[in-house]
């Protein structure tokens, strides 16, 4: 089928883009892999599960209601595995593969977690901080009975408070940042008093439960046989490198750890639009104009996938991209566009200081990467260690694609999403810069899909066999 605009991702960015374009009169198809809209931050609870009231549940509910009342063609539970042409999207869902084409495409695919590897991070029971928010929000499941929460950024408090709420024990919070980092961010955080108040609420909850908060501590190792049994925590310095001081060993069955997010920019990378490396925004991100247009005509990007800026910015940037697409399609004239764009533009300007402060807390710390022991697995899919990555450099690998060929790093089913950023940092330390080593080339399938899903009900006897050519 064809439509005016395809939107990939139904988080705050994509859903608002779809709504804005649809309200302006475009025929919009919205895809998401999840069964419901909301994305990561406003994740829908599992059907039949009541969740306690929270601002996220409220915002998500409101967004889902607006979508349900709109003319947007919602295709949820569909994994988009191919994006090509200008523009053709293939998605696998309950009814097999479906193809939609449109002259315009908005990529709003969000972000995924960054975990800087340490020995044992591959053990069952070790999960991402963002992964923990999924369990807590969608399933009201605690990621363990007794859990260490480690890493950096605001998700530490979100996850620790969530575990307490579901009846779990938080053995410790290990924060790479120090109290002085949080104090330094305070002026920027106080530009969003409501969010600051929530942060204070989490801190109170954590304090009341007497959870030990270890500032400037990182995970030295996770240990266990078939699953996680204990976590070793050690002091770090301001740059994230391990420092002198006593190690703490905690017996736990869960470790939630995360070191910020990485933009899911593979759709824009697939189209080879102009991009640039921006550490604060999480890595390589597409270059955009102020309304979200990429360097390729008809392709737009917004939300965390276009550079990490958080949910508030995602909402406004999504709206703006949707309006821009409607304007470019001729559905909104210049003055209607300018007046509709004023509100999201003002929201973007307001959110700036807050999102920068949060992004700085979660940006990759090079000294932390430099401290990874040589035999630690970097690429989970292919079991490639730091030593093997550095050996590949010794053998002549100078960019990410060469590294992939030399070691299989990034070649597995996650396609480098979990190792790419850290592997690039390791190679860049040898080669000179992140710009020089670049990124893995994005290629379909964007997400692996089962061949059975693409083929549908199919049998060999269904293959038409042409008659042999006459001699």
């Amino acid at each position: 089928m064809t439509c005016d605009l395809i939107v990939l991702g139904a988080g705050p960015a994509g859903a608002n883009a779809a709504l804005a374009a649809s309200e302006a009169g475009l025929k919009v198809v919205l895809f998401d892999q999840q069964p419901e809209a909301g994305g990561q931050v406003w994740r829908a609870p599992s059907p039949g599960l009541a969740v306690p009231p929270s601002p996220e549940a409220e915002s998500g509910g409101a967004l889902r209601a607006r979508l349900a009342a709109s003319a947007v063609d919602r295709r949820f539970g569909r994994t988009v595995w191919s994006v090509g042409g200008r523009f053709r999207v293939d998605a696998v869902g309950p009814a097999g593969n479906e193809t939609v084409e449109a002259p315009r495409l908005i990529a709003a695919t969000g972000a995924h977690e960054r975990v800087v590897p340490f020995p044992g991070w591959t053990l069952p029971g070790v999960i991402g901080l963002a992964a923990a928010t999924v369990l807590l929000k969608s399933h009201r499941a605690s990621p363990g009975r007794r859990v260490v929460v480690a890493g950096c950024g605001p998700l530490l408090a979100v996850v620790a408070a969530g575990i307490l709420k579901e009846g779990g024990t938080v053995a410790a919070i290990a924060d790479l940042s120090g109290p002085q980092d949080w104090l330094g961010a305070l002026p920027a955080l106080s530009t969003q008093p409501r969010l600051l108040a929530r942060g204070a609420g989490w801190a109170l909850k954590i304090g009341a439960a007497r959870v030990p908060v270890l500032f400037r501590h990182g995970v030295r190792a996770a240990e266990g046989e078939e699953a996680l049994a204990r976590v070793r925590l050690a002091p770090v310095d301001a740059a994230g490198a391990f420092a002198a001081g006593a190690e703490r060993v905690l017996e736990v069955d869960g470790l939630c750890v995360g070191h910020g997010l990485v933009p899911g920019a593979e759709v824009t990378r697939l189209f080879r639009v102009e991009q640039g490396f921006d550490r604060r925004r999480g890595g390589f991100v597409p270059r955009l104009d102020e309304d979200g247009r990429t360097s390729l005509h008809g392709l737009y990007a917004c939300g965390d996938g276009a550079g990490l800026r958080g949910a508030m910015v995602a909402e406004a940037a999504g709206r703006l991209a949707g309006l821009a697409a409607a304007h470019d399609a001729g559905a909104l004239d210049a003055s209607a566009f300018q007046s509709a764009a004023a509100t999201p533009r003002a929201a973007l300007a307001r959110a700036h200081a807050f999102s920068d402060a949060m992004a700085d807390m979660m940006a990759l710390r090079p000294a932390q990467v430099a401290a990874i022991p040589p035999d630690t697995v970097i690429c989970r899919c292919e079991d490639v260690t730091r030593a093997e990555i550095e050996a590949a450099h010794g053998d002549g690998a100078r960019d990410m694609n060469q590294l992939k060929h030399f070691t299989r790093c990034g070649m597995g089913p996650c396609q480098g999403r979990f190792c790419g950023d850290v592997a690039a940092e390791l190679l860049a330390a040898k080669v000179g810069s992140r710009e020089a080593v670049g990124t893995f080339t994005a290629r379909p399938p964007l997400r692996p899909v089962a061949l059975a899903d693409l083929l549908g009900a199919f049998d060999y006897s269904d293959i038409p066999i042409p008659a042999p050519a006459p001699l």
Partner: protein
Amino acid sequence: MSAGTSGVGGDARPLVTILVDDVAVPARAGEMLTTALARNGLLRLRKSPRAGGARGAFCHMGVCQECALHVDGVLRQACLTPVREGLTVERRGVL
């Protein structure tokens, strides 16, 4: 993750039984398979391809592929697969 969820109020999802490596395991209809497995203490889902290390769900959002299992005979990401009565899950032999 083996605990936590017990005693959650407001869970109207029916209890069903799934078969994991031929063993009956209780689960909530509609919850994701990774959550159901973890609730039953089944954290180890597979072995890594080269070193043979124990692996389990890691991202819970469909990105890492660590939770790929044979579900009703087809390779599926367990964190994107909702539970329903009679689902068969095969961990043995999954790489």
